[in-house]
C-alpha cells in the first residue's frame, strides 16, 4: 500500500512542477530582458556624463567595488555580520513574543479590547520617531538596535497571528465541541494548526520589517552594520558603496522571502498543491 501511495504522490507532482517551470522560464526571460535594457542604459548615461558619477555611480563601478569590499579588502564582512546579528536576534525575539501575543489576542476577546488601543497607537507611530527615546533608555549598544528591530517586526506578526486564530473554521470547532475536547486540546488540535499558515505569513512579513528595522537602527546610532555603511558612504560621497549596500539589502530581502516561502511549502504538506 505504501509503495502504491508513493507512486500516487509522485504522479501528482509532475503536473504542478511543469507549470511552475514554464512560469519561471517566462519570468527569467522577461526579467533578463529588463536587465539587459536597464543596465547598459544606466552605464551609458553615466559614461556619457549625462548624470554625474557622484549622484548615480555606474554598474561597472559598483561591480568593481563589490569585488573589492567583499573579496579583496573584505571591509564589508564585519558590517554584514553586525547587521545579521541584529536582524536575527530582533526577529527571533519578535517571533517569540509576537506569536504568543497574537494567539492570546485572538483567543481572549477582553485582552484584545484591553490592548487594542495601545497596539494601534504604537503601530501607527513611525518607529523612527521613537529612536531618540530608545537610545536614551537603552544606550548606543546592541540592545537598542535589537529593540528597534523587534519593534518594527512585532506588529505585523501579532496582527497576522491574530487573524490566523480567527480563521479557525466553525465546522472544526463544532467537531471538537461535539467530542467534548478540552479547551487545551481544542487549541492544539484546531486553532493552532488553522493559524499555522498565518504564522508563516507573519514570519514572512516580519522578515521584511526586521530588515527595515536593521537599517533604521544603524542609520542613527551605530558605527557598524550595513545601514551604517550606506549612511557613512553617502556622507563621504561614495555613491558606489551606497548602491552596493542597497543591492545587498535587496538581495537579502529576496533571499529571506524565498526561504520562508520554501518553509511554507514544506509545512503545508496536508494541502493539495493547487486548491
Amino acid at each position, binding site marked *: *500500500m*505504501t509503495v502504491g*501511495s508513493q507512486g*500516487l504522490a509522485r504522479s501528482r507532482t509532475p503536473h504542478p512542477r511543469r507549470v511552475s517551470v514554464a512560469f519561471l522560464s517566462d519570468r527569467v526571460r522577461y526579467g533578463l530582458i529588463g536587465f539587459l535594457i536597464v543596465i547598459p542604459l544606466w552605464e551609458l548615461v553615466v559614461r556619457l556624463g549625462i548624470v554625474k558619477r557622484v549622484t548615480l555611480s555606474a554598474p561597472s563601478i559598483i561591480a568593481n567595488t563589490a569585488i573589492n569590499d567583499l573579496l579583496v579588502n573584505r571591509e564589508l564582512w564585519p558590517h554584514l555580520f553586525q547587521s545579521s546579528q541584529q536582524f536575527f536576534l530582533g526577529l527571533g525575539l519578535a517571533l517569540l513574543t509576537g506569536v504568543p501575543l497574537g494567539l492570546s489576542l485572538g483567543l481572549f476577546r477582553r485582552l484584545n479590547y484591553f490592548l487594542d488601543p495601545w497596539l494601534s497607537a504604537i503601530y501607527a507611530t513611525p518607529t523612527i520617531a521613537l529612536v531618540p527615546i530608545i537610545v536614551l533608555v537603552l544606550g548606543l549598544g546592541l540592545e537598542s538596535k535589537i529593540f528597534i528591530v523587534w519593534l518594527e517586526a512585532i506588529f505585523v506578526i501579532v496582527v497576522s497571528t491574530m487573524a490566523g486564530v480567527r480563521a479557525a473554521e466553525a*465546522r*472544526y470547532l*463544532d*467537531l*471538537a*465541541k*461535539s*467530542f*467534548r*475536547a*478540552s479547551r487545551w*486540546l481544542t487549541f492544539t*488540535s*484546531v486553532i493552532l*494548526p488553522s493559524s*499555522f499558515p498565518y504564522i508563516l505569513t507573519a514570519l514572512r512579513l516580519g522578515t521584511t520589517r526586521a530588515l527595515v528595522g536593521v537599517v533604521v537602527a544603524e542609520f542613527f546610532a551605530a558605527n557598524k552594520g550595513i545601514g551604517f555603511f550606506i549612511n557613512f558612504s553617502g556622507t563621504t560621497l561614495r555613491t558606489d558603496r551606497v548602491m552596493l549596500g542597497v543591492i545587498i539589502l535587496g538581495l537579502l530581502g529576496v533571499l529571506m522571502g524565498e526561504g520562508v516561502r520554501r518553509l511554507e511549502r514544506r509545512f503545508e*504538506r*496536508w*494541502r*493539495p498543491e493547487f486548491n
Partner: protein
Amino acid sequence: MQAGLALEARNVRMEYVDQATGERLLAVDRVDLDIEEGQFVSIVGPSGCGKSTFLKIVNGLFPATDGTIELRRPDHGVAHAMVFQDSSLFPWYTIVDNVAYGLVCQGVPRKEAQARAKPLIDLVSLTGFETKFPYQLSGGMQQRANLARALTVDPEILLMDEPFAALDAQTRELMQAELLRIWNEAHKTVLFITHQIDEAIYLSDRVIVMSARPGRILADIAIDLPRPRKLEIKRSPDFITYADQIWSLIATQLKSHLHEVQAKPGESVA
C-alpha cells in the same frame, strides 16, 4: 425514561433570533420523539425545516429553548457521537489520527487511541489508508472515516447529519448499503437526517416526516421491509408505496410554503 429507549425527546422547541433582521424565529416546535435501542430512525423534511437543528440540539451543539431530551446512559462508551455533513476531517491530521480524535478528546493517550481506532478503520474498509491525509481520499472515503471517527468512541446513539448529501449519486447508493452493513455489525441506534426520501426508507426502521419551518412532526412511518436489504429493494412496489406516501406529505408542505411566499410579494424569498 422508559426502559428500552435510546432517546426520549419531549416537547422540544428551539427559537433563535435572526442576526440580520432581529426577528425571533421558531426553528423546531413541539417535537416528541422516542427511539428504541438499536433502531434506525430517519428524519426527512423540506430543506430548512429544522431537522438538522434538532440533531444539533441532541448533540449538545445548540441549547433547546424548551423541552427535554433524554439519552440512555451508556454502560460503556459515550451517549452520542455525530457524523457530520461535510466530513470535517482535520486536513492536518492523518486518517488514523482523525479517527482516533474522539478518544483523544476523552484523554486516551494518542498511541492507544490509534490502536483502538484500527478495528473501526477496518470496519469501514479504509485499511491501508491510515497514514494518508484527508485530501488524498475521495469524498466517499472521507465519509467512511467520518463514520469510523464517530464509532470509535462507542456511542449509544449515532447522530448522522445528511452524511451522504455531498456525494455523487452512485457513491451515495454504495455508501447507503455500506452503512447498513456497518450498522448491522456495530449494533448502534441511529438517528439519521436526510432530505432524500429513498435514502430514508432504504435505511430505516422508521421515517419521521417533518413539516416546513417551524419543524413539527407530521408523520411517523414504520418501514416494514425485510432486512438485510439489497439496493434492488428500492424498485420494489412496497418501497415505492412508502416513497409516494412520504413524498405527498412533503409536497403539501412545499406547496403551502410556496403559497406563503406568493402571498407576501414584498418580502424577499430567503
